[in-house]
């Protein structure tokens, strides 16, 4: 952290050194003046409005009032950083936000090149300012600070009319007009300036750059080139966590064969959209890796069931059978015994059935896991002391009737086992019963009696419910949520001819904030146990909740595009 701060402070300082007046109008884009042959690149463009929006946003005030930020601000590092900012602000006679906007608000590009002589890759940073005069005034005002640096900074005139500073005999910073360029390799800097002067139209050559008119930032890595340099990429073939393998195994595999990874970010004043593309020949992969891929025609898709007010939801499209059978190729050997334990554990609830042989073939390929706040209608006026959201699973079945029977068996055994345990501990047992909802039979467990009070044990969050809706089996921890899931499945639109989607995920911070508020007592209890006063705890919770409320739902999708995997991510505030 400290190093980053020092680095950014010195960048600010150096950037401010540029005194030269504008010689020519800006013409080229920053990324285009970078020398060709880069293996990775980053660019920022037109961030000024976003910086302004951030400066005035509620998000910023929420961040600044967050406990973590305040803790950092009061730490030695935080105070040092604040001191540095104040110094720069007073020296430049401008606010930090304005300085940031001026220096980085127009165009910045960084390009990395394969190592020539030294073992390390080399890079160059090129920045273009909207207004050369601002740069000149900054540098002038910073001159006293440069003088203070003594012989650590050596200044010389460039032949092309620019000025260059060599810092600690390593880093060179050169500036001219509205451009400043930094690199440890002076050859790169010379090339950049000669390209800046070029009258011809320059175009970035890399096919991996996906930057478009809406993008504010972008980055790409030429994996093929890196693979050529390194021999192989350090991406794990097998993951050591079954859940990670199920969710991200395909992604990890695609990166291994990928030509490039490219990302773009579009930032508006209320929204951030990020897109990552892994250019990889996924379709030519063989089993078991095909387990991760939705059909190419987009006919079956990992879309989320239409349920309003979700806390979080995820749908994955996977061939579970292929994945499970191919586990020896997909996960680390040392976690394989976990699968055996899982089968042994499951056999308690699926008496006389084998998971691989009897259960897997019945499953379809689409699974949704969902959570939403619950109404606790099953408790009347009573409430559990810790209020959990309702959880639900929507499971596609290839053989709905047989599959449903197995899951019912699982469900009933679970209730029976839980009842035995409840009896031992003096808890309320469950009674299996059913109702009809939109012509669908919904089985659920209810409590023998409705208890009273607002500190009921956690178990009262649960009213296990299940239903078979067409080829979907719906399981939920709450009857009311189960009904909503049945509605959602019945009203689930069949996927349009969209790109094949492997995963959809959503998370609503505002709903999380409400849940946190509903569970204030438990959070306070936890803080009090750690030595906080209730006042401190309440203050913290209020801040956290207000912070979360700034955000609109976050969405994440993984699709199969023309080039390979496309991941898109969006977050609003």
């Amino acid at each position: 952290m400290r190093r980053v701060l020092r680095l950014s402070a010195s960048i600010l300082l150096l950037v401010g050194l540029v005194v030269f007046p504008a010689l020519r109008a800006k013409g080229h884009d920053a990324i285009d003046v970078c020398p060709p042959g880069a293996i990775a690149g980053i660019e920022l463009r037109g961030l000024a409005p976003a910086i302004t929006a951030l400066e005035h946003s509620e998000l910023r005030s929420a961040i600044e009032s967050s406990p973590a930020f305040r803790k950092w601000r009061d730490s030695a590092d935080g105070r040092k950083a604040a001191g540095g900012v104040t110094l720069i602000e007073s020296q430049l006679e401008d606010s930090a936000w304005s300085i940031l906007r001026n220096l980085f608000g127009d165009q910045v590009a960084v390009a990395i090149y394969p190592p020539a002589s030294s073992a390390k890759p080399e890079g160059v940073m090129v920045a273009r300012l909207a207004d050369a005069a601002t740069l000149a005034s900054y540098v002038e005002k910073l001159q006293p600070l440069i003088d203070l640096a003594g012989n650590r900074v050596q200044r010389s005139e460039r032949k092309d009319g620019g000025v260059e500073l060599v810092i600690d005999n390593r880093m060179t910073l050169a500036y001219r007009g509205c451009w400043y360029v930094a690199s440890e390799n002076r050859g790169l800097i010379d090339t950049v300036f000669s390209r800046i002067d070029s009258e011809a139209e320059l175009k970035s050559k890399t096919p991996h750059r996906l930057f478009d008119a809406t993008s504010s930032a972008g980055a790409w890595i030429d994996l093929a080139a890196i693979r050529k340099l390194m021999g192989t990429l350090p991406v794990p073939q097998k993951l050591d966590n079954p859940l990670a393998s199920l969710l991200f195994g395909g992604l990890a595999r695609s990166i291994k064969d990928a030509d490039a990874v490219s990302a773009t970010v579009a930032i508006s004043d209320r929204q951030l959209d990020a897109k990552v593309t892994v250019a990889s020949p996924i379709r030519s992969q063989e089993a078991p890796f095909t387990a991760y891929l939705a059909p190419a025609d987009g006919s079956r898709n990992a879309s989320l069931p239409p349920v309003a007010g979700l806390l979080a939801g995820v749908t994955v499209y996977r061939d579970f059978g292929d994945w499970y059978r191919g586990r020896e190729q997909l996960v680390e050997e040392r976690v394989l015994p976990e699968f055996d334990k899982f089968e042994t554990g499951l056999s308690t609830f699926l008496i006389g059935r084998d998971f691989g042989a009897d259960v897997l073939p019945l499953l379809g390929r689409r699974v949704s896991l969902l959570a939403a706040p619950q109404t606790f209608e099953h408790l009347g006026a009573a409430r559990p002391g810790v209020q959990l959201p309702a959880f639900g699973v929507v499971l596609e079945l290839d053989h709905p009737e047989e599959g449903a029977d197995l899951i019912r068996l699982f469900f009933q055994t679970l209730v029976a086992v839980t009842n035995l345990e409840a009896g031992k501990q003096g808890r309320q047992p469950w009674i299996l019963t059913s109702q009809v909802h939109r012509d669908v039979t919904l089985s659920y467990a209810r409590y023998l009696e409705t208890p009273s009070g607002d500190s009921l044990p956690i178990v009262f969050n649960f009213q296990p419910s299940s239903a078979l809706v067409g080829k979907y089996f719906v399981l939920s921890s709450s009857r009311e949520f189960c009904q909503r899931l049945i509605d959602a499945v019945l009203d689930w639109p069949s996927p349009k001819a969209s790109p094949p989607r492997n995963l959809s995920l959503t998370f609503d911070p505002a709903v999380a904030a409400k849940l946190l508020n509903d569970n204030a007592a438990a959070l306070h209890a936890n803080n009090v146990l750690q030595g906080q006063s209730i006042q401190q705890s309440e203050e913290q919770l209020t801040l956290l909740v207000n912070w979360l409320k700034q955000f609109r739902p976050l969405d994440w999708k993984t699709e199969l595009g023309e080039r390979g995997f496309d991941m898109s991510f969006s977050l609003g505030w």
Partner: protein
Amino acid sequence: MTASPLSPADWSEARSWGVAPAAHLLRRLQTGYRPEELRRVMDEGPEQTVDRLLTEHPEDPSIGPAIASLEQTALATGQIDSLRAAWLLGMTTPVNPLREKLTLMWHNHFATSYGKVKSLELMRRQIDLFRRHAWGNFGALLHEVSRDPAMLVWLDGNSNRKRHPNENYARELMELFSLGVGNYTERDIQEAARAFSGWHMRHGDYWFNSLQHDDSEKTVFGKTGRFDGDEVVDLCLEQDACSRFVASRLLQTFVHPRPPEEWTTAVAEDLRQETFELRPVLRRLFLSSAFFSSEARNSLIKSPVEFVLGSTTLLGVAIRWPETLRLLASLGQNVYEPPSVKGWEGQRNWVTSTTLMLRTQFIADLVQTNQYGVASPSKLLESADLSGVLAIILGSDSPQLLASVREQMSGLAKPDQKQRLTLLMQLPEYHLY
């Protein structure tokens, strides 16, 4: 004829009321205290202090919600440690410290363990019962305890049936709750057990199961009648042994581990006079010459709760409960789980080489690290000189002790305030009060 041990201590001599008796009173009546409280007691004098401590005050609004959230979460998650923290947090709050200390005394007297009851709700209700009757009427308390749901589970109330009487409750009622060994016969227990038959628990509450109640004649302590449980409790309360037994409990908790015979006799007599109303008896006891006598001073060994929470309160530590509760369990006092129906024998039984090591290490960690929470010692303690600190921490104004501590202090390489505190709180004297 000597004066009664319960005659009020005499403070007529000039300067006789001072830091030593004030600290003695405070240390005996509270689980812990802040240095400012000692100053206050010195200013108030004994009577006003005792009256204040024997009065119920409205709960502290800054602590109440913390306790409530701990209790709610404990009940929801089944974590007994949250319930422990809730109670102990209340014990360290200076609002009703004596009430909480008496509540802990009754928890020890009617020792019931979560280990068997297995219901946080019932345990909490039982502690609430002790709290309500902290300085109320012992007779009323004994009647209510006899039908307390946690007690019914603990001593097998539901298996006490008409044709299969279970003697567990009747035995402990006489042996441990009201009379003591040697003041009843096995026959008394068997007969009394029948009187409690049918005193069951249902849906978490006391329930008189008339079908399982043996309504026939019983003979207890030589009296015969168709007694029910309440009448047996009354018969116990009528015994002379009962007032002596309760008197011993009060004296051993507040005055002396082995009280002289005449002290017990005097308190027992007082209890009978007041028909077991505890508040006036406690008031007289706390102001008595016996209470302030030199035999009584520093004669009790601090329980782990008193030692640990007394230390955290003294230093103004915002307690980290998981570590603190683990330590209390290692030291042998895991509230809500007494080792048996006898409760904690306490006193010298608290002391083993392991517990002494753990206590000594705890002081070093408490003063010098944040392992048990962050300390914010009061100005009074920070600015006091050695004799001042000695007075605050050990309640002592003895010149000999001061000289001996000075000698020890000279062995410290860098005697800063933390080192001084560590040394003083590691002294043998600090284990006593």
